[in-house]
């Protein structure tokens, strides 16, 4: 289609005020909360602001953040993936088993694990789209299947519930450069996962706000019938989103495997709701069609800071769950308020 922009700027195009524009962003609430929590732990603990401390909570945040961003994209597209956490374990176990037990080349093992993850993501999408069942139920089933298979298969093959001896696999060090290395910055020992996290957040934000695919993600999540009626390739979009969360699960699986060179059969189990909470704290609506990747990354940052902050403050670790619940409730209330202020009816 050719498109000629009108020569004169139309009176209807007036730049909105800065405050107005800011308030319209879904991630404002999370940004404010992240700042508050950062200041709180900086003041109340000694270790939080030290280079080692910062590196620790950034690392935590990065692993959750990668998943939270992928889950946020999926939620904006109107779906959930409860199998995302178990996928982290599945992919780590696949690489661990095929290399240590069967001597498969480590690079090939990475590709096999990725292919299986993407296939599971595609299967999730396929079942959801063909049956019209809620993805919450479909991926809950996938979650249980993966959880069971992770444990059962690992036990059958290795006789234990974890994979050891990864470090001795040929090529381990080369792969570690991409997934398990770190570098020094301002006196901090920065893990490579932080770089992945930032890059993925930036990429997801760009896709959401500036590309056609991003427009389609908002559209299918907002009103699937309308999207279909105007010709948005709904199936392709949903397929891509489910495969993205599965792919993110693979990435996090690799980042953990090559960081500690071991993997448990229970890795990732119980984390799926944390990803969703991070996305919601970051401004995603459970109903789809609204949210932000930066918000989800901030949600993960809040989680990472709190997770480590509570340790630095030497509080009972159980406070984390209570905090998480409170944070979630506060976040949805703040987001509701912000959206009302910005004149969004929902």
């Amino acid at each position, binding site marked *: 289609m050719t498109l000629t922009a009108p020569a004169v700027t139309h009176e209807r195009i007036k730049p909105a005020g800065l405050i107005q524009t800011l308030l319209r962003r879904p991630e404002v609430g999370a940004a404010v909360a992240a700042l508050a929590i950062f200041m709180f732990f900086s003041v109340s603990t000694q270790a939080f602001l030290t280079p080692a401390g910062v590196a620790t909570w950034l690392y935590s945040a990065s692993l959750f953040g990668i998943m939270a961003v992928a889950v946020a994209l999926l939620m904006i597209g109107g779906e959930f993936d409860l199998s995302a956490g178990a996928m982290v374990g599945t992919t780590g176990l696949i690489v661990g088993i095929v290399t240590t037990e069967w001597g498969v080349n480590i690079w090939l093992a990475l590709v096999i694990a990725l292919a299986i993850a993407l296939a599971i993501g595609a299967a999730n999408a396929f079942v959801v789209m063909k049956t019209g069942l809620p993805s919450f139920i479909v991926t809950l089933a996938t979650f249980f299947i993966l959880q069971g298979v992770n444990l059962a298969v690992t036990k059958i093959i290795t006789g234990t519930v974890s994979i050891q001896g990864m470090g001795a696999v040929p090529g381990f060090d080369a792969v570690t450069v991409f997934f398990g290395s770190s570098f020094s910055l301002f006196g901090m020992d920065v893990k490579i996962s932080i770089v992945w996290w930032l890059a993925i957040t930036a990429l997801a934000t760009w896709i959401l706000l500036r590309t056609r695919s991003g427009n389609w993600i*908002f559209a299918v999540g907002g009103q699937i019938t309308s999207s279909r009626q105007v010709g948005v390739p709904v199936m392709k979009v949903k397929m891509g989103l489910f495969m993205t969360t599965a792919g993110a699960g693979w990435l996090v699986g690799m980042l953990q495997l090559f960081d500690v060179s071991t993997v448990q059969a229970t890795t990732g189990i119980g984390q799926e709701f944390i990803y969703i909470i991070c996305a919601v704290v970051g401004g995603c609506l459970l109903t789809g069609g609204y949210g932000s990747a930066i918000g989800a990354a901030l949600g993960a940052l809040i989680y990472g800071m709190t997770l480590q902050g509570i340790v630095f403050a030497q509080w009972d670790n159980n406070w984390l769950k209570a905090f998480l619940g409170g944070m979630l409730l506060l976040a949805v209330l703040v987001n509701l308020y912000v959206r009302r202020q910005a004149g969004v*009816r929902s």
Partner: protein
Amino acid sequence: MSEALLRIEGVSKKYGPNTVLKDVSFEIGKGEVVGLLGDNGAGKSTLVKIMSGVVDSTVGDFFWDGQKIEKMNRNVTEKLGVETIFQDSALVPQMTITRNIFMGREVTNRFGFMKMKEMDAVAAEVLDSVVTIEGIKSPKQLVSSLSGGQAQAVAIARAVHFKRSLLILDEPTSALAVRATEALLGYLTQLKGEGVSSVLVTHNLHHAFQVCDRHIVMNHGKKILDARREDTSVEELTAAVVEGAVGLARFREGSF
């Protein structure tokens, strides 16, 4: 006589066990305005969705300018220049007016970036193209913040902007005030002059009679009347719409 723009032949549609369209055939001529009338649930919107390629017919053939369309779908109809204002407006409330107008047809540069400024500018223009509705402040406004009529105006603007050969309007004036309705009906007559055909679904028979060259009346999924304007009357259309085939027969007996 030249070929019809769109001819549909023997279209039937089942939803589960329910047959909602039964062996429907008709033509839409080039530059013709066709009224598609009938009671609630008669099958008008289903027919509209089939003609727009968003719903598959269970059986039926489609011919465009005499050429058979092998597989009807939205890709094909979009290429042919068919645009539809759906009864439910087909908007995404959480998105801006601009993003709604260009949904599925975003304008991008060669790196895949959407040209937001350009799209905003075009959106602002097209909002005023046919019906001017008060109160839409900016194309960056979310559709959820619009009134019913304003939202309908966005759906109209979008279809009008992209249509090239056939504009299908499924109760496009249901939320519009008198002035906007008049403007839209007038526009259909103007389109005729440009060689663009249109199909108007409406429950207002006077509006239909005012602008349509031909009228098709549906009843329980069947076509019961297909008449040129000069061969029918508002009274006959009313009898057909309200009382179906029986009413139509009685009306014809009474008038001959």
